[in-house]
């Protein structure tokens, strides 16, 4: 074991050198050499949000809202389809997880059945990459009553699709705020994890993400509500007006300063406007190409928007056919304004006014530009760390690491003397390698990760201790110095492997099931174990071999 070929020595030293180079940016970055480092493709360790400050938000598609939307849509489709076929129906309404409708005349049931089957709405299940279609609804027929129920598999597929769409929309919205370096990704089946580093005001983001931004241009019904809670005529739906919503919210905030929205019940109790719901009378925000925050002739902030060609044509037709009548601009179920159509608007652009502040029009423009969310998103978890706490944590972590390193290094000198220096050298290289690997692979350093590093400090010397104690034992049992060293390394290897593999198992489980910071801990622990194996059995061994070769010791002084 004492003979090392030249290339092997070079390989080992090269690995150590590579580790030093990879770890270097962490030392140079604070000195202002980041440009030099990036030029060579080197970067310091990525800091977790708990160290640099920032927000971690976990959102989930609101299942109830999604169900609701699907039911609404299906009801609209049933209405349209049966009307086209001139089939009389009644009792169109929601059930717990679907929609039911009854055909009036028995002779129409067959025709209705054929038509309604077309509405089962296949969705790509995405289970296999080839794309298997599953139906969103199942249809059962009891005589002349048809019952649509939401299919759980189809619903899951729909949720998955909604998540993808929502991620896209969120990306646009957050980037619209000018926040860079945010990470938005799917987590598990129905969740979106949003990480925004260094954000000072997560509440604005939360508000921004909270609105679905479903925009509709709908004609007002000829007849209008006379009192709250009065029933709208067929093909009309009741929506509250923004002015009354704002007033009510202001009133609510007098008792509850944090109120941001009104409950559904509160909204229903407000004065309502009736808007037409038939498709011909509606243009929706999906056809917008642009939205900007500007000012109108009275210098109040408004949102101006542009339609794409399809939207422009539909909007032109809607306005041309209804000159002189009022139409409503409905955003997320609230009528923003209801201007009269003075002339056909063929240019495909318009304005939304409605007593906004500049910040509101800004955010509204962002949300409109990014499109509507497929369903409401609920914040299920939020973790925010302020920048000062993050900085304190780094400082504390650095102190703890240095203190730990000094303690452990001094402690190793006491029983082992010269051999302790070898162990200490290995320990330092171990740390450098750990930092280098973390930096190179872009593993994120979190606060628990720092704890993992400190723990590695303690456990890393274990391999050396095992080897040394073994060498010592062999020596005391009468073997020659050379033999003792050789056996010591050999015998310790299997012990160290067994001991470390078990820790590695724990680390992998931690990584597999943990989230966020816990994962950070698992990563440093796992990387630490690997670098420890290297330093103990490759580097320490090389150093000892070099020493043995040079001094040819006749006794072991351990």
């Amino acid at each position, binding site marked *: 074991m004492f003979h090392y070929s030249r290339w092997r020595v070079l390989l080992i030293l090269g690995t150590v050198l590579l580790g030093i180079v990879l770890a270097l940016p962490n030392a140079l970055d604070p000195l202002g050499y980041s440009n030099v480092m990036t030029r060579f493709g080197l970067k310091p360790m990525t800091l977790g949000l*708990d160290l640099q400050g920032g927000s971690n938000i*976990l959102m*989930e598609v609101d299942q109830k809202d999604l169900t609701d939307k699907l039911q609404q849509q299906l009801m609209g489709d049933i209405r349209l389809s049966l009307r086209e076929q001139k089939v009389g129906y009644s009792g169109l309404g929601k059930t717990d997880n679907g929609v039911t409708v009854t055909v009036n005349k028995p002779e129409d049931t067959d025709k209705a059945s054929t038509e309604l089957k077309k509405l089962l709405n296949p969705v790509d299940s995405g289970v296999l990459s080839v794309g298997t279609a599953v139906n969103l609804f199942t249809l059962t027929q009891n005589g002349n009553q048809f019952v649509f129920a939401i299919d759980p598999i189809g619903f899951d597929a729909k949720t998955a699709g909604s998540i993808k769409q929502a991620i896209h929309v969120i990306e646009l919205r957050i980037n619209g705020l000018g926040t860079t370096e945010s990470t938005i990704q799917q987590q598990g089946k129905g969740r979106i994890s949003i990480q925004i580093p260094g954000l000072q005001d997560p*509440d604005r983001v939360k508000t921004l993400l909270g609105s679905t931004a479903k925009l509709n241009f709908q004609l007002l019904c000829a007849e209008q509500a006379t009192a709250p809670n009065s029933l709208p005529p067929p093909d009309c739906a009741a929506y509250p007006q923004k002015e009354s919503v704002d007033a009510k919210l202001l009133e609510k905030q007098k008792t509850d*300063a*944090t109120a941001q929205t009104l409950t559904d019940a509160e909204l229903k109790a407000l004065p309502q406007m009736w808007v037409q719901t038939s498709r011909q009378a509606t243009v929706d925000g999906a056809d917008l190409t642009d939205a900007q925050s500007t000012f109108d002739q009275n210098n109040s902030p408004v949102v101006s928007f542009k339609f794409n060609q399809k939207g422009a044509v539909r909007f032109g037709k809607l306005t041309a056919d209804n000159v002189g009548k009022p139409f409503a601009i409905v955003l997320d179920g609230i009528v923003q304004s209801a201007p009269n159509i003075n002339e056909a608007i063929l240019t495909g652009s318009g304005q939304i006014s409605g007593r906004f502040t500049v910040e509101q029009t800004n955010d509204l423009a962002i949300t409109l530009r990014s499109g509507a969310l497929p369903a409401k998103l*609920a*914040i*299920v*978890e*939020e*973790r925010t760390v*302020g920048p*000062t*706490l993050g900085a304190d*944590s780094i*400082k*504390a972590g650095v*102190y*703890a690491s240095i*203190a*730990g390193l000094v*303690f*452990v290094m001094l*402690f190793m000198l006491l*029983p082992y*003397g*010269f051999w302790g220096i070898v162990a200490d050298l290995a320990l330092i290289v171990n740390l450098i390698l750990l930092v280098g690997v973390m930096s190179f692979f872009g593993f994120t350093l979190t*606060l*628990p990760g*720092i*704890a993992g590093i*400190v*723990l590695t*400090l*303690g456990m890393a*010397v*274990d391999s050396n*201790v*095992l080897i040394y*104690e073994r060498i010592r*034992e062999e020596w005391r049992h009468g073997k020659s110095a050379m033999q003792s060293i050789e056996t010591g390394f050999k015998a310790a290897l*299997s*012990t160290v492997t*067994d*001991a*470390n593999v*078990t*820790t590695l*198992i*724990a680390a992998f*489980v*931690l990584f597999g*099931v*943990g*989230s966020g*910071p816990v994962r950070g*801990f*698992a990563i440093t622990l796992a990387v630490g174990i690997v670098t420890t194996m290297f330093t103990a059995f490759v580097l320490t061994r090389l150093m000892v071999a070099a020493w043995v070769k040079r001094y040819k010791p006749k006794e072991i*002084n351990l």
Partner: protein
Amino acid sequence: MRWKPIRFVPDDTKIHFIRVSRFGFFLSGILCAVAIALFAFKGLNYGIDFKGGSEIAIRTQGPAQLDKLRNELNNIGLGSIELQQFGSPQDVKILVPAQGGGDANEQAAQLKVIDTLKSLEAGVEIRSKDTVGGKVSEELTQQATGAVMLSILFVLFYLWARFEWQFAMGAVISLLHDVVLSIGLFSLIGLEFNLSIIAAILTIVGYSLNDTVVVFDRVREFLRRYKSMNLADLIDFSINSVLPRTMLTSVATLMALLALYFFGGEVIRGFSFAMIWGVVVGTYSSIFIAAPVLILLGTKREISSSEANPEKGRGKRR
């Protein structure tokens, strides 16, 4: 080079661990029973990770008036809000209980507390805020329990493959012992039990195993080498011969962890405390629980030695 190394553990110790282990079992049995009782009746001080709600860390400009803040915050109708000193007199941690009835309510509660704080304390700094909804906390609880179970199971299989089943059982029994005692201690002192404590427990699992495996490795080796030695003596001999290593490594690890405890900052203190306890218990259990269990389980000599011995006796070989 003349260096007189300091031996922390004298050479050739001949401590009769197996004889002492009866007291060890007795002591551990009582402690585990107490731990389980504590867990059953007092329970753990679950953090928001497992029970939902919000945790807000603030820093006030002057020393925080805890009583005033506590009174005011408990008057805003969000249930019983807890306040704790968190490091310096200016630092306070506020625990808002789960509101239930949907995730939006948790968010609203968090906002309300922060607004109230801002109106009570001029220039208050929100250092961190965590809000976990009911569904997520439930999942985190399941995941955490699953993680501990799963890692123990994996370890059981690994050791089974590398050693004999008795060794695997011995390791897992000492492991469960460590986990139970750790949970008992957390229950006793009311340490906040959160995700990072789970990470600590899993690391305790790893560390305790590390220690146990080193002892086992030596037992296995001696079983091959000293075929005629009686098992109790052999285990005593094994533990004694790795004792210097066990002590050195445990002390080195403890030193690093103490540095973390004292210099690592308030946020990580609970975690480092859990780890320190884990190292102490893990070292103890590898000597007084794991190895003696091998005798109780009647580790068969013939499996580990090459001698063919048809005797299938499971009796204690003492």
